[in-house]
């Protein structure tokens, strides 16, 4: 793959790099900032983010969102998905984007139900 074939813009064209190497360092800086924010939030645990949102703490939703952002940049820039044909890109990403949320949905819903059953004391778990 020649130099010209790399797509050198990230953040939807907001940030353009001159060479592929510069883009790699740029993405590293971005990923480091995101990780630092995650760790900082994890240590500080700001009171305002501890409120419950959709049955989970707001802070946890932020962590999951930031993780997906990190995963996107690792896949798109380090694994060069950005440079692949859209056919290959879709055949990699679509099965995962469809199957993973489906699996999460059925299992977490079931777990929540089992929690409720045990919580009302229908099945004793602490004896």
């Amino acid at each position, binding site marked *: 793959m020649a130099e010209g074939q790399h797509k050198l813009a990230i953040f939807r064209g907001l940030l353009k790099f001159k060479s592929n190497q510069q883009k790699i360092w740029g*993405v*590293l800086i971005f990923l480091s900032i995101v*990780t630092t924010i995650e760790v900082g939030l994890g240590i500080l645990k700001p009171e305002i983010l501890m409120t419950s949102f959709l049955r989970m703490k707001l802070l946890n939703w932020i*962590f999951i969102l930031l993780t997906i952002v990190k*995963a996107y940049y690792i896949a798109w820039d380090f*694994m060069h998905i950005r440079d692949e044909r859209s056919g290959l890109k879709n*055949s990699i990403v679509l099965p995962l984007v469809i199957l993973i949320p489906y699996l999460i949905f059925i299992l977490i819903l079931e777990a929540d139900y089992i929690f409720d059953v045990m919580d009302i004391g229908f099945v004793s778990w602490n004896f």
Partner: protein
Amino acid sequence: MEVTTNTQVNERELWGGGAKPFSASYGKIMMWFFIVSDALTFTGFLVSYGFSRFKNINSWPIADEVFTHFPFLHGVDAPMYYVALMTFILIFSSVTMVLAVDAGHHMNKSKVTFYMLLTIIGGAIFVGSQAWEWKNFIKGEYGALETKGGQILQFVNLENNKRISVQDFAIGINSERQTHKSNIGLWYQNEKTLPKITVEEVKKGFLANPNLTIRTEQISENGQKTLLSRDEAIYKIDDAIGVVEGANLIHNEYGNRLFADFFFFITGFHGFHVFSGVVINIIIFFNVILGTYEKRGHYEMVEKVGLYWHFVDLVWVFVFTFFYLV
């Protein structure tokens, strides 16, 4: 239908149809197939972890209280700093890997060698860190009692509201009980090493010290583990049937047993991936030094192993979130 021909492409690299599907080579597409299936395997593990966690949502161990160690800082409560460091190491070794791939595109052998070496070192440091993390987890810190129902009772000193180790307050009782070994008893029977202290000793020490109380697994409204009052604790301690120190696949002093099981299984499976990644990287590294890819005319092998290496990094990002942050 018109087929665009690329004169630069070597005839041997073309597929049966006379063109490369998705303009990617066979090996690269197969690596992507593997990565997609492996990603689903890890999804299965992490989602089943989520299942157990939501099933026990009000009694799951709090990660910040479990992973508190940092090298050379003894007795300092440093939650997450070490795993954050591990994350940076892995991301950085991912960066050196992309740089190696990039140098490969420019056919720069010495740079590929250098960056591959850095990647291998980063991976090795990461695996070593994970081993250290496991060691601390297995060894445990405070110890706890386990009840008949498999609940964990931890101890807190009310004077300073800090956890106290069962070793610190248990009062020794002289006992003749020894570990049963096959060479001194029935040859077909043996048992695991006995804990250094017994339930009776912990109970005796607990009753003798009025400042101690029990911390249960239950998480209260404010997100902390529930402390029992002294009276409740004296009543509760009678349920205990065993002393637990550290964690293994059966007992776990930190709380729910499933937490330890999933910790060992998921970080272990990920660590195994890192380890295989390091081994494959070493093989590729020597091939680079020997000039195999120079002769072949391209460094695509580095690119393929790079895909695997980044995938391992990608999985760690999720493991980090779901085991340590959330």
